[in-house]
């Protein structure tokens, strides 16, 4: 059995990631004339840039209203509806890809459906003689897992907030702020240790995912298809894959590559969960974690909410290793395309959807990242709308994929259950994004989707499957 010390960080960090948020973004003034706020809830959020607090005048008008004040309100609404729909699709695609990878692996590679022990977080076994005992064990497993997660989250929030007690003036631009901050810190106070701890933890966990789990995954896939690969090739492949992944995720890289790596590590983590969580515990944990997510993000004293608010106060971007960002690349006309493609990640974010705003301190690229977009503004009015991305935490990817993967693994070879869960999760995500557009604040992405997913899993498995099977055996079409 593998020791999951480092993945411990991964797991609770996973739950740091399990929410979907948008910043407080007041509707810009010039757009207010044209509409009366969210009418039927399908209007999108006004994605706001970080600069709004500082340079309040330029962004609202340009970004959201596409710079033309004279448009009729109906057209505005149509545009924002389409705009919002585009953001929804930008999240549908990666979630779908992650689920496809997980389901394809589950259906073909036997390894991930074999029972080979359990995690240390779920010590109670489910091989018990009675149903009641099994239920009790799964509930106990869930309690242990969730309490581990809660403890880790609170620990991390404390570490993060503790760093915040270093006072600084907030009216400076963020770039200057960053430089000031990192140079101000003397070498070894506990605050820096705290920061390094978070940073080191994240690096360790991505290292483990990108190298160890990939190696295991590759080994199992090769075994399944009976393909031989010699060790030098394997070493080269895994090394390249992992190294490029580390660079893309933690530093800079093409956006598409970063997204692909994030999807892959989410899929790998989901596969680990599917393999090592016992049956009933997995379902109870899924339910419990959505409740936890709801509580942690929405309650005033919830750890995730405090994290988000702290990050918003400090106007810091999220640590990119834990968030999937679908921001599109800046369009033509930008002088420096490369740093600004990374800038598109952080710049217009004002965390629209974030949950863990781990500070990525000491990044030397920040000054250049913030400059070019600013100079590019005057010429890029109509393009600004395209720049907003949406961000979804990796934990959400992981738990969605766990649900669909479990449905594929235990649905008795039935594809209907898997598909039903897939559609349910997508609709849940759509509804969550809708709520996000209405409420414009941090929202948990798990509850609605997981609830729908669970309902559809159990009902499809127990009600729809016999019905469809009977219909099919009699060659009846409905």
């Amino acid at each position, binding site marked *: 059995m593998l020791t999951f010390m480092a993945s411990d960080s991964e797991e609770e960090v996973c739950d740091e990631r399990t929410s979907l948020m948008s910043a407080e973004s007041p509707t810009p003034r010039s757009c207010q004339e044209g509409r009366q706020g969210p009418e039927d809830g399908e209007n999108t959020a006004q994605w706001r840039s970080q600069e709004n607090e500082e340079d309040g005048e330029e962004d609202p008008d340009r970004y959201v209203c596409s710079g033309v004040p004279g448009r009729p309100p109906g057209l505005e609404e*149509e545009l924002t509806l389409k705009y919002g729909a585009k953001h929804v699709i930008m999240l549908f695609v990666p979630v779908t890809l992650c689920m496809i990878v997980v389901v394809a692996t589950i259906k073909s590679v036997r390894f991930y459906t074999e029972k080979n022990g359990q995690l240390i977080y779920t010590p109670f076994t489910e091989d018990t003689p009675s149903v009641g005992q099994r239920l009790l064990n799964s509930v106990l497993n869930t309690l242990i897992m969730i309490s581990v997660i809660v403890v880790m989250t609170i620990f991390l929030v404390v570490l993060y907030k503790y760093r915040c007690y270093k006072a600084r003036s907030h009216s400076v631009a963020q770039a200057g702020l960053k430089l000031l901050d990192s140079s101000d810190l003397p070498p070894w106070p506990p605050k820096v240790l705290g920061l390094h701890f978070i940073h080191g933890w994240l690096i360790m966990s991505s290292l483990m995912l990108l190298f160890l789990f990939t190696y295991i995954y590759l080994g199992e896939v090769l075994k399944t298809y009976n393909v031989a690969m010699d060790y030098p090739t394997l070493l080269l492949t895994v090394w390249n894959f992992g190294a490029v992944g580390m660079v893309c995720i933690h530093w800079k890289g093409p956006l598409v590559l970063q997204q692909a790596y994030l999807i892959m590590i989410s899929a790998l983590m989901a596969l680990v969960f599917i393999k090592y969580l016992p049956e009933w515990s997995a379902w109870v944990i899924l339910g419990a974690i959505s409740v936890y997510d709801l509580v942690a993000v929405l309650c005033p004293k919830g750890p995730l909410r405090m994290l988000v608010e702290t990050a918003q106060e400090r106007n810091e971007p999220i640590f990119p290793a834990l968030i999937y960002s679908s921001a599109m690349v800046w369009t033509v006309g930008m002088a420096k395309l490369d740093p600004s493609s990374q800038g598109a990640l952080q710049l217009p974010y004002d965390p629209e959807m974030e949950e863990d705003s781990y500070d990525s301190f000491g990044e030397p690229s920040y000054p250049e990242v913030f400059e070019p977009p600013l100079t590019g503004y005057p010429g890029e009015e109509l393009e600004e709308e395209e720049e907003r991305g949406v961000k979804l935490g990796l934990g959400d990817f992981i738990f969605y994929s766990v649900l669909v993967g479990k449905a594929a693994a235990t649905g008795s070879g039935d594809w209907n259950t898997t598909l039903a869960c897939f559609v349910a999760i997508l609709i849940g995500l759509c509804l969550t994004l809708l709520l996000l557009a209405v409420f414009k604040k941090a929202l948990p992405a798990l509850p609605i989707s997981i609830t729908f997913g669970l309902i559809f899993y159990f009902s499809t498995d127990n009600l729809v499957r016999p019905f469809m099977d009977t*219909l099919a055996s*009699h060659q009846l079409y*409905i």
Partner: protein
Amino acid sequence: MTAAVFFGCAFIAFGPALALYVFTIATEPLRIIFLIAGAFFWLVSLLISSLVWFMARVIIDNKDGPTQKYLLIFGAFVSVYIQEMFRFAYYKLLKKASEGLKSINPVSGLGFGIMSGVFSFVNTLSDSLGPGTVGIHGDSPQFFLYSAFMTLVIILLHVFWGIVFFDGCEKKKWGILLIVLLTHLLVSAQTFISSYYGINLASAFIILVLMGTWAFLAAGGSCRSLKLCLLCQDKNFLLYNQRSR
């Protein structure tokens, strides 16, 4: 049963739907969302009808024999009825969400159709990948082909029903809704009345063609526009395509 059967049947059943998706829906994010919403509505309707069937089975006390068959037929009819009810609910939702209803017509039926086709055919498809001999016990060896074509018919019928249904709702002609329900029941009924594949398929295709013509006319087409389109002389269409690029 080989990969050839798998791919052949998959493309027969889902090819036109995929083409419709690629050409009309994939470019517009809003339509994709409506498609998934349509699939979701169909799924919910199926869930409710399975619940009804399950409860009926539990009440009538699990016996084998003709009772089960009648129960199944009852379940199928209830399912058709609930599907149409949910189509109406879906119409209401779309009406509320979007002003340009006509422009998203193919989406409405396609969501239903794809989900319906997938649910009825995907398990059969995955079985066709594995080893086996079809019809070894005296059943027809054309089972996969028949299922594929039937699925195709159902998907396309859902698309046409969607268009006609929405048109009827827009014009408040409730008779049209009734006709859609009746044709749906007819298609479903004749799959179990007759066990001859040929007759089933033939009648289903006839209904398909009729519904297709009706949908075409309801969507505003005419012989003239069809001719223009086929001969690539339709200036509006060409201009529209160019504009949207």
